């Protein structure tokens, strides 16, 4: 398959079952909603070391939020429910409770109910107040700027993490430009995040290492500087490879984001140095989900 001169490899991305949740963060204005959300989703690129993968899904205008203030929707994904609940509470406590004017609400109505602000109430030292409206419980925690308002619970659902595709280009700037275009397009797809810096990862990994203590190491088959000394997957003209990792609430969401991203990267085409689109997998042995690139782009 070739799109605008870009070869789509006959391969697939291998993704895993995860647990996901959504939190709506509102504030006096978008600037402070972003301050809270950026802090909450910081150091959350990969479950390998961060516990969760998290990102800002989209902006919400005041008509879309429970308290009628501007806000953002944040998605968080983890490999298990226990770690997701722990990370959610920790990040809520350190990043949202602390942020001036910020409030937090459930972003998923169904699924298993997990604690959002339930235990943060104890910060109120007995002065916290519970309120129930419309079948939902909220906590008002007195803080120095006024009151921190949070919903008690949010929803946790089964989700998909680790969808991905690789952009192979003739130069580093060209690979980055294609990835930036892909991320812009993918941000418009609901229910997904691309958790790495700017949505792009340059250090794709393979399973295992020559060092016994490491469970993953650099994906040497896609490292352009190793073309001559390793079993490379790159043709001579490829000088840079970048990856976009996708977490979504359903496999269909990941599929849509993958399609939007690849289409945007391919729009730049071979004339802008974009040569191939590939994907990372483990031979289909580890992940529950497979996203075949040619099927998605057909």
């Amino acid at each position, binding site marked *: 398959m070739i799109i605008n001169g870009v070869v789509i490899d006959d391969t697939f991305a291998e993704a895993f079952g995860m647990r996901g949740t959504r939190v709506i963060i509102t504030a006096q204005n978008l600037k402070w909603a972003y301050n809270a959300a950026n802090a909450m989703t910081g150091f959350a690129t990969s479950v390998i070391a961060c516990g969760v993968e998290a990102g800002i899904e989209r902006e919400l205008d005041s008509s879309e939020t*429970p*308290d*009628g*203030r501007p806000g953002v929707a944040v998605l968080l994904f983890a490999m298990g429910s226990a770690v997701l609940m722990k990370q959610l509470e920790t990040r809520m406590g350190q990043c949202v409770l602390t942020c001036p004017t910020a*409030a937090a609400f459930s972003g998923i109505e169904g699924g298993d109910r997990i604690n959002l602000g339930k235990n943060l109430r104890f910060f109120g030292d*007995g*002065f916290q*107040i*519970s*309120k*129930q*409206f*419309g079948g939902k419980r*909220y906590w*008002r925690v007195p803080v120095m700027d*006024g*009151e921190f*308002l949070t919903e008690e619970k949010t929803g946790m659902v089964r989700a998909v993490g680790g969808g991905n595709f690789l952009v192979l280009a003739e130069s580093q700037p060209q690979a980055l430009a294609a990835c930036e275009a892909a991320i812009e397009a993918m941000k418009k797809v609901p229910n997904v995040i691309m958790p790495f810096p700017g949505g792009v990862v340059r250090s794709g990994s393979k399973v295992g290492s020559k060092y016994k203590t490491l469970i993953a190491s650099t994906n040497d088959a896609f490292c352009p500087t190793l073309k001559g000394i390793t079993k490379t997957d790159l043709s001579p003209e490829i000088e840079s490879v970048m990856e976009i990792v996708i977490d979504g609430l359903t496999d269909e969401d990941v599929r849509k984001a993958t399609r939007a991203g690849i289409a945007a990267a391919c729009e730049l085409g071979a004339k802008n140095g974009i040569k191939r689109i590939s994907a990372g997998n483990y031979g289909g042995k580890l992940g529950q989900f497979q996203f075949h690139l040619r099927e998605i782009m057909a």
Partner: protein
Amino acid sequence: MSALTLTLKSIPQQRIDCSPLTPDKLAGKSVAEIGAIELQSGKLTLRTDAVFDISGDDASDLVFMNCRDKLDYIGNAMQSGRIIIHGDAGWYLGFHMKKGNIVLHGHAGGFAASGMSGGTLHIHGSVGDYLASAIPGDRKGMKGGLVIVTGNAGDRVGDQMRRGIVLIEGNVGAYCASRMLAGTIGVMGSVGDYVGYGMRRGTLLLFSQPRLHATLQDCGSHTLPFLKLMFKSFSGLPSKFAAIHLNRVQRYAGDLANDGKGEILIFM
């Protein structure tokens, strides 16, 4: 199917306990079976068909016609359906009500919504003392649900109220929110003396400055974000509270003589 209608035949000599007459208890019963249900009236036991003319067959939609204030315990422990009352209701309207909907087109006596834990009680009229309060011997008054009163309420509204929302569009008497444990009471009109007496937790929303006793302390004026959320949840209600969008209040906390975690919010 038409609404099951109970029309009072004549003004009772004594009070009558109507607690057996709720939609869930009458479900599946024929008119004859309903007529044979016994109602307590002082020392007497009366058949339902001796007190009411019975018509209709849909017990989930129960209507009391020509109702009088001697009919107590209407909607007692009700678990489903709807009761519409034309005329006045006696004491203990919606007592320990769990689910469903009661609409009263008239006035109600004391202890309405006492022990209520769910559902909606809408009184198009005024109500006596002890609305949403605990009866003597109970430790908690209203425990959930929603009460709307378009008229006035008597003394001791929300005494030992534990949860739920009470919205009163008129005035209330003395000791409003006394010994309140939690929940929300809103009063659009005036309140009597000793408001929040012994209040432990909970929120009282007022639209005019009441006379406050010494153990309710001024915490200053504030813009509270939860009020936006609360009034948004009221927006669909058949009440004047649905049209309110205020979030700037003077906050008083108390009663400091009894833990002091309650609050009286007065809109500015």
